[in-house]
């Protein structure tokens, strides 16, 4: 399903139950499921706190068949945000079945933050650290100053592997901000900008789009980005 196949009827707000009807994946296995005492339990998909959010104006879509699995995006993500090379800190995770015993196209899993129309990470954050950044195109971001490291955002993420990333150095959660706050990246990030991973991808397997992809499954995000064949070969 192409990224442009955005439902007009969804308009700018979608309720959480819309996401559920779309068949979102179950909660993550919970390897980071260590909560903080006194913090409310995360809202479950069946919860009553229906809330709507303005849609992000930037989304990264990808082509898992075009990806080489080179991890360039992961290295530049950590370098752009922290100035160090560390894939474990990257907000985009490309998992290649390393011995590659699994054959194409199942050998690579691309884990890209979906900037969910209904962001459960935001909804379940007890402090407002995870929020919709109205000043930057409604991108879902985490303010490190407000994060208390409770990991609710991680527990709430319906994707596997979960998209919010735990930083063991700061003991706080982070997530893809489309390089809005990437101090080591020399270009402008955010919606309409040049996120480090997208710009640095040598296989052009990542693309920044402005309209929300279908939220139903991965088809809205894992799209065909094959470049057009040249009119004639040299």
């Amino acid at each position, binding site marked *: 399903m192409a990224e442009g196949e955005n439902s007009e009827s969804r308009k700018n707000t979608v309720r959480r139950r819309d996401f559920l009807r779309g068949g979102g994946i179950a909660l*993550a*296995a919970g*390897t*980071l499921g260590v909560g903080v005492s006194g913090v409310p339990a995360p809202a479950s998909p069946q919860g009553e706190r229906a809330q709507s959010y303005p849609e992000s104006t930037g989304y990264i879509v990808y082509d898992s*068949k*075009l*990806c*080489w*699995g*080179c*991890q*360039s995006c*992961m*290295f*530049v993500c*950590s*370098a*752009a945000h*922290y*100035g*160090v*090379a*560390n*894939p*474990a*800190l990257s907000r985009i*995770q490309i*998992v*290649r*079945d*390393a*011995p*590659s*015993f*699994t*054959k*194409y*196209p199942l*050998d*690579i*899993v691309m*884990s890209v933050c979906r900037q969910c129309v209904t962001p459960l990470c935001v909804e379940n954050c007890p402090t407002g650290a995870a929020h919709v950044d109205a000043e930057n195109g409604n991108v879902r971001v985490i303010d490190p100053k407000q994060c208390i490291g409770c990991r609710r955002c991680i527990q709430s993420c319906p994707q*596997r*592997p*979960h998209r919010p*990333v*735990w930083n*063991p150095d700061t003991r706080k959660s982070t997530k893809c901000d489309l390089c809005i706050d990437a101090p*080591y*990246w*020399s270009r402008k990030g955010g919606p309409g900008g040049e996120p*480090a991973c997208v*710009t*640095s*991808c*040598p*296989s*052009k397997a990542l693309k920044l789009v402005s309209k929300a992809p279908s939220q139903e499954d991965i088809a809205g995000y894992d799209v065909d980005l*094959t470049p057009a064949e040249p009119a004639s070969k040299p």
Partner: protein
Amino acid sequence: MTYGYTGKIARIHLTTKEISTIDTARYEEFGGGYGIGAAIFWDLAVAPGEWDLKDPYDPRHVLPIMTGPLAATGVPGAGRTSVCGISPETFPTCEFWRANFGGRFATMMKLAGWDGVVIEGRADKPVWINIINDQIKIEDAKELWGLDTWATQDRILSMVGGRTRYGEEWQRIGDAYSTGLPQIVCIGPVGEAKSRLAALIQGSGVSARIGGYGAVFGAKNLKAISVTGTGSVQLADPKSMMDARLWQMEHGGLVTGSFAPASAGSASCNPCLRADRRRNSYYGGETMCVDQFWLDNPEKQELGATLSARASAERDLASKALMRYGASGWATHFLGLFVSDIPGAPEFFNKKVPVETGIGWYIRYLYRIGELGPGKRIDSSPLPMDQWDSLGFRLAFLDAVSNRVGIGEDLAEGCLRAAEKWGRLEKDLESGALRFPAWGATGHWTLPSVEWAYNYLLGAGDPSWHGLVTAVGAPAEGESLENKLRELSRKTIPYTDDIFMFNYAWKGDEAWKTGIYSPHKAKEVAWSRHYASFWNESMAFCEMFLPTLETLTPEIEMKYYAAVTGKKDSFADTLRVGRKIWTLERSIRVMHGRSRKKEVFAPFMYKPGASGMTFWGGVPIYENGTWRSDEAPDMYLDRKGVEDFKTHYYALEGWDRENGWPTRKTLENFGLKKVADVMEKKGRLGA
């Protein structure tokens, strides 16, 4: 703070089980990767003088497995892992040599906090090494011994990974989390059998094919090394590193066309993972061409011909078997491409000479002439020689070698050792039926790319370095060859402004005056070694990726190097380090017996039929006052000419004329006084 390096190297002694640490800073003057590996080999294996450096299976053998400072930094194509030590594969003697492999092993090693591991001793029973960040354990490999390389990795993955399948969820590792899998380098049954044909395998098909170092693992009872890391590598200037990537992309240096090395974009290194959806080939694209086409018989099919579904499946299965058994695609080569008509080619090549031949082709040759077969003088049992080009034959071949059954016992020792045992060595090296140019290494682009041939001779086999072959190729239509070479000569620092170093004239006076036997050619060969020693073998750039002499070299190398390490070296400085590494490598070989008289090509190289083919419009030849590109299919070498070349080359490198041994002055010029002292004590210092 040191940038790029993690600062420590693990030293693991399999006999004593002692695990200690080497401070990387002690060796930074050697760059990284192979440079540091060779320096450690000198200190631990050569300098003590307790070992004669002859037997690669001796427990005193030290095997450094090293990364470069640019690995795991986001710099593309610089994630290769270097292995060096006494090679079981080289012939007639086991020489100090090296191999490297791509994949993600080096990347994960750095993220685990190590610049490399040095393996010493021999375990009293099979073991594997488990590295998880700063924790290193020597584990019992009883249940792994006997498994193929894929099963070995699968088993280790399940042991290290726990219950959750990698890729489905983050794994907790200490205080950190990772979606990355452990990276494992291991041996299969061929390595366990201590066959000289053994490779080190990582993933489905990344392998160290040169040198037979899989057999060294086998001799040390070492089945595998697994690494898992979650740490960071510090960058001197992360913004500049990423800007350099973009600069390279914008200037066409990160290619996305088909048949281009995807390592160009890799933060790790997947050397022959091709672009444009060719990930759909050969189990993740991790195997390289020689492995992918292991089953092919170019005598029967056209280059680039479309295979039937069955033939394609069988090709895939053969490649897969090669990797699972852990054999080297080079050392077990069957048959390379036939493209050019070669004047003077032996009859058995039917006028055309294959790019490569190896042990597989040779046994069929002996079968065709009636020397080898069921019940023949050389009994081929258990190989079904009448099914030579079938998948079944390849499987039988691997099985015979790894079990050392029947003829497999001889084959396991490598092609030239087998030929020697069969009493055919001299005859077949003379005719070229054994097309192994020097040191028992399978032939590969040696002529007319004569600088490649000289690299075989001065090293210990195939340099597997393509850095100059395209750069000296025919110019684009309408462009001047002389101008192209003049531009090229400005980059070959410090031997600049001498375009005759690119002259491949091989006949008549010109060959001695400015051609392949002249002092000019010595500069080209020296530059190729100095560049490769630093940038490809120590900074660990894929040699299919850099240099790009026609475009971005040396700017791109220096941008990455400065951004990661923060060092202010010039390109000339880096080449000087490359020369220092090459000089140290030479010194190690001298200590185990290398001398001038041993540096001779196989006899067929001095006869018509020695040349092969070029893909790049030929080599430049200057004769009668003009330059031309010439495929030189009739090229062969002159014995006196090669000796004259060696004299020029030794003089250029500061090695003595009589033996080719580095002099004290040369060694001390590179700060290698301690090396000179040891060599002098052994009576091996150049006069």
